[in-house]
């Protein structure tokens, strides 16, 4: 995931995931288990990849994910878009892309990166981006 805290520290980077591999000092002031980014990503990929995911679970999961202070990783969005395909819900797929763009906020480099990573999936499934449909502007 592309955390806003990481972005605040590395504004100039076009790809911020590399920064997260830098060694960090481990602090032992809490014994609660802290979920790593990879675990977070795989948990959500697994959630959206469930074969019998229903429409409510798709909406609940995506609304919860959008509520976090982060921009979802492209592989999470990939599984979410494939879930929309399984549920025959094109409107939700387009809405997810819109929400990701909105979550990027002032960081203009995130959305093009996400679209670039998702382009094979978008072409395979036939999903148009909001820009292609003309709903990204009033």
């Amino acid at each position, binding site marked *: 995931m592309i955390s806003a805290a990481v972005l605040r520290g590395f504004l100039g980077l076009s790809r911020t995931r590399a920064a997260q591999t830098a060694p960090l000092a481990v602090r032992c002031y809490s014994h609660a288990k802290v979920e790593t980014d990879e675990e977070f990503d795989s948990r959500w990929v697994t959630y959206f990849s469930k074969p019998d995911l229903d429409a409510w679970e798709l909406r609940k999961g995506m609304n919860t994910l959008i509520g976090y202070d982060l921009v979802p990783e492209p592989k999470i969005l990939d599984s979410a878009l494939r879930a929309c395909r399984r549920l025959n819900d094109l409107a939700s797929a387009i809405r997810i892309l819109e929400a990701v763009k*909105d979550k990027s906020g002032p960081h203009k480099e995130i959305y093009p990166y996400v679209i670039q990573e998702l382009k094979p999936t978008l072409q395979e499934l036939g999903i148009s981006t*909001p820009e292609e449909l003309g709903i990204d502007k009033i």
Partner: protein
Amino acid sequence: MLSSRALVRGLQSGFWRRLSTSSGIWAAHTHDVDVTDCSVPQYNNRLDTPLPDVPFVRNLSAEQKKLKEKEKGPWTQLSKEEKLAIYRLTHELSFPEMRKGSKEWMTVLAGVFFFLGFTGLLVWWQRVFVYGDVPHTLSQEWIEKQTQRMLDMKVNPITGFAHKWDYEKKQWK
């Protein structure tokens, strides 16, 4: 008047919601209103909840049903207009439309100033018709005698009124 139209619009948005229409493929853009059944989930345009609980258009016309059937097939075979229509069936407003500002602040500010003006008129009317003359204890002679008596009684001689009067020179310090 602006306020009347704003009031009507507020009532409409508060008590009536655009649940559904059957006037064609661009039903989402008409403004028919219907009474809301509050026991069923509502459609909401919210930035923090991008996928609403229920689709915007729930009573589909024949063309809309056909479009929904086509949605179940490959999406690569849908045209741009069809995709847009499918989107509008489920979502009334896109994100930029939700984020667009409103000029409603003008109505609110106008209402505030109107009531402030009315209050001013009320105060003016009270000044003319309710309040009489100031009491006689504010007249100059009364104030002079009152001050003299306070000095004679040495009111608050340590730190207060009488403290500022020089009794030897009979003048203010």
